[in-house]
């Protein structure tokens, strides 16, 4: 901590928040709001005279509310920067009638109530997101009695209580009577590993088993005679040196009981706790009387993750943590070029793993920063100024805000920010956008070629590079056989699939067209595949209008790992295909030829922005909602019911 504060090349901006990020890899422009501290952080010597006179008392956040602080305070003695700060909401103000006592006693005259928030503009080439995690609030788990019973505490409160710098000076005591506990219990997996959204999250929080083992050894150090019971589902001690620590804890006499308490009751006289638990190893209900109970709370994504996600156009995995560019091969790159992830922002992990990942992220950023110039893959979008009619649709759908457009102005692609998904090219009603490499002409030529030899037995298939194409690769690697009728046309994203491509394929005699891409929530281009859904929806309506069976156009999601699923999709579309007759195909081609589709604008007239099909990540519920670009950016992928049950707090 101190090293970071002293380093000549590190500028610390504490009490600060990133407000805006623009630009792109190698060239980000960042606006930071540095909130007023009302104390000059360079002058303050942290003598603490001010605190002695401040009349305002507030719960101390650092001590988890177990002790108090004043309105002017330092978060903790070793804080970096070592300077006080005024909690301006609590402060009475500098008017001498109201208060202003601290100003009088500060020798260095570093308290300044005229200080205002500062806006700092930064230019950077790389960004590392290390925003960490929040912790689960166990109040919702009523049976454990947290907040109802004072002797039930969380694992973080435990840390403060046993710390020499804590509210009790390191004397680990009961909060109700100040006595050292003789019998203590720990409950594991609090808020973790549950499929009930009210009770927490499905994933394992990674740190809490080892943390409890550590706590038990610390307690045995303090009080060798203390009786410790740990209630658990599984003990996960998989890291280097972990099993060893677990064995030490057992050898020290710590009792491990397999089973989570069903009920905790407090004796109103003694304030002791009676814990009822089904010991699943012994197969019986047991009862323990304890002086204290510690809840091993799980890790949750930070409340402001959605904000950070939007600032940097990141993605989040279904657990709510930030998503890596690739789970195995690019584990510290974020989905946005030039942004890297470190620590618990990416997933819950301990200090060692956080530090390891941080060094990896620094190395990845270093690869970028140590170059004076970088090359970008030439698969980006290009606007044909002569064709552009300045409608702005492209700018609306671009997930990366890579298109600059103002009313009555030709759209302009910021090449460096363009990720090459092709969503804009598919969207433009006037065919004014061309993708380099994955050009319209090349795709039309591929459709023609696919249908050249035996159209009636050909399934024209669009597959996105990252998921469905990769899923088909996985099916191959796993030697999963399926009917040989699909002819795949690779695009970077399913969002590249222009409605015109589909019309064209039907016009040219395709019995079945399959559009496939990443799962709805896992789009590699943030949410470009939301546009796929919208287009396919519109196409289905259009097909119906022309008397073409909408089933002949299929939309499927398949992730890179799901070879089995790809094979299954292939069998299903083949089943559809065999039931499409030559006459039916002929009728379709005729109707479409007469109607003179494809014509982008016609698709649009058919259906302007249509409701998108959303699906809840937590319970799987599906619903339709009016699509708008604004919503696409600020999407929360939980249904209303799950959100209201949700323990996550969205700031």
């Amino acid at each position, binding site marked *: 901590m101190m090293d970071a504060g002293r380093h000549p090349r590190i500028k610390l901006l504490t009490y600060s928040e990133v407000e805006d990020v623009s630009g792109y890899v190698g060239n980000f422009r960042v606006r930071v709001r540095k909130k007023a501290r009302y104390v000059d952080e360079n002058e303050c010597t942290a003598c603490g005279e001010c605190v002695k006179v401040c009349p305002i008392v507030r719960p101390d956040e650092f001590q988890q509310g177990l002790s108090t602080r004043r309105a002017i305070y330092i978060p903790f003695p070793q804080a970096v920067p070592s300077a006080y700060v005024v909690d301006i909401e609590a402060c009475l103000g500098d008017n001498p009638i109201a208060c202003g006592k601290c100003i009088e006693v500060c020798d260095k005259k570093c308290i300044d109530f005229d200080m205002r928030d500062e806006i700092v503009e930064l230019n*950077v080439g790389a960004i590392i997101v290390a925003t960490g995690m929040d912790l689960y609030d166990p109040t919702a788990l009523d049976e454990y009695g947290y907040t109802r019973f004072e002797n039930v505490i969380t694992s973080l409160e435990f840390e403060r209580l046993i710390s020499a710098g804590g509210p009790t000076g390191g004397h680990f005591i009961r909060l109700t009577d100040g006595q050292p506990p003789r019998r203590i219990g720990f409950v594991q997996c609090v808020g973790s590993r549950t499929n009930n959204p009210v009770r927490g999250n499905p994933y394992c929080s990674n740190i809490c088993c080892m943390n409890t083992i550590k706590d038990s050894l610390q307690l045995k150090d303090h009080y060798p005679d203390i009786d410790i019971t740990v209630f658990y589902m599984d003990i996960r001690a998989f890291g280097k040196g972990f099993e060893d620590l677990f064995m030490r804890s057992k050898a020290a006499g710590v009792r491990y009981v397999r089973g989570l308490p069903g009920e905790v009751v407090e004796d109103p006289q003694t304030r002791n706790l009676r814990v009822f638990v089904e010991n699943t190893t012994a197969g019986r209900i047991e009862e323990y009387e304890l002086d204290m109970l510690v809840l091993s709370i799980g890790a949750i994504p930070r409340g402001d993750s959605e904000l950070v996600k939007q600032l940097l156009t990141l993605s989040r995995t279904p657990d709510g943590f930030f998503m890596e560019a690739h789970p195995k091969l690019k584990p510290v790159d974020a989905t946005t070029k030039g942004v890297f992830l*470190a620590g618990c922002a990416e997933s819950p992990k301990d200090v060692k793993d956080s*530090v390891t990942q941080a060094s990896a992220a620094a190395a990845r950023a270093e690869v970028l920063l140590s170059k004076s110039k970088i090359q970008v893959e030439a698969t980006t979008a290009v606007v044909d100024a002569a064709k552009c009619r300045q409608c702005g649709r492209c700018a609306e759908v671009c997930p990366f805000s890579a298109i600059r457009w103002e009313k009555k102005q030709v759209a302009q692609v910021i090449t460096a920010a363009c990720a090459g998904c092709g969503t804009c090219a598919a969207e433009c009603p006037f065919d004014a956008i061309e993708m380099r490499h994955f050009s319209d002409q090349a795709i039309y030529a591929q459709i023609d070629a696919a249908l050249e030899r035996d159209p009636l037995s050909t399934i024209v298939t669009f597959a996105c590079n990252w998921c469905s194409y*990769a899923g088909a690769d996985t099916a191959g690697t796993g030697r999963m056989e399926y009917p040989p009728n699909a002819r795949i046309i690779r695009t970077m994203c399913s969002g590249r699939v222009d409605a015109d491509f589909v019309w064209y394929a039907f016009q040219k005699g395709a019995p079945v067209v399959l559009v496939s891409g990443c799962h709805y929530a896992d789009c590699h281009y943030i949410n470009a595949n939301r546009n796929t859904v919208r287009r396919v929806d519109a196409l289905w309506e259009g097909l119906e209008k022309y008397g073409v069976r909408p089933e002949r156009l299929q939309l499927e999601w398949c992730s890179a790992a799901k070879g089995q699923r790809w094979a299954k999709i292939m069998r299903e579309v083949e089943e559809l295909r065999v039931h499409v007759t030559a006459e039916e195909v002929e009728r379709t081609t005729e109707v479409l030829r007469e109607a003179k589709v494809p014509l982008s604008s016609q698709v649009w007239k058919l259906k302007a922005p249509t409701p998108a099909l959303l699906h809840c990540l937590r319970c799987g519920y599906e619903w339709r909602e009016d699509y708008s670009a604004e919503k696409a950016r600020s999407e929360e992928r939980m249904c209303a019911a799950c959100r209201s049950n949700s323990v996550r707090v969205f700031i």
Partner: protein
Amino acid sequence: MAKGNPRIGVFVCDCGLNIAGSVDTEAVKDYAATLPDVVVAVRNKYTCSDPGQAEIRRVIGEHNLNRVVIASCSPRLHEPTFRACVQQAGLNPYLMTMANIREHCSWVTLHDREAATRKAQDIVRVAVAQARWLHPQDEEQLPVTDAALVIGGGVAGIQAALDLADAGHQVYLVEKQPSIGGIMAMLDKTYPTMDCSI
């Protein structure tokens, strides 16, 4: 379009028996040679091997090719390999495309040689059609600002900031709270070494 009419070369890979085991690669090669604008079709046992790549470069020179189709495995595996290969032969890397006749064909159509061969031919035809419309592309060069922003001053943010600063880069470390430290600053001792955390 690259100068003149497309002159496409198709390289069909056996991949040992991985492709040749279920696809008649000779028939695929012969079929490829009949496609429009294809001036040469070659069959190779291992196209990605050094001799295989040398052969591609030789044929490009010999037949003055300006488009290359490589019918082998997934571009997700070997696109970078073959892009580099054609570049060495003086061709723009974006003038190469791949026909995935392994993952998408030979490996999923194991027991019907005729169907697999037919499918492989179709896949090659689609790739050749695409190749005709490939254009040389220049990868753009962008300048880089030599500074980094680290958001969050917990142990991860501090470590990343220190590493980058030690490597000589300017770092801005933005922390929401009045002090850096994050959760670790609140811990007393930390596993697995049980030492103090601040």
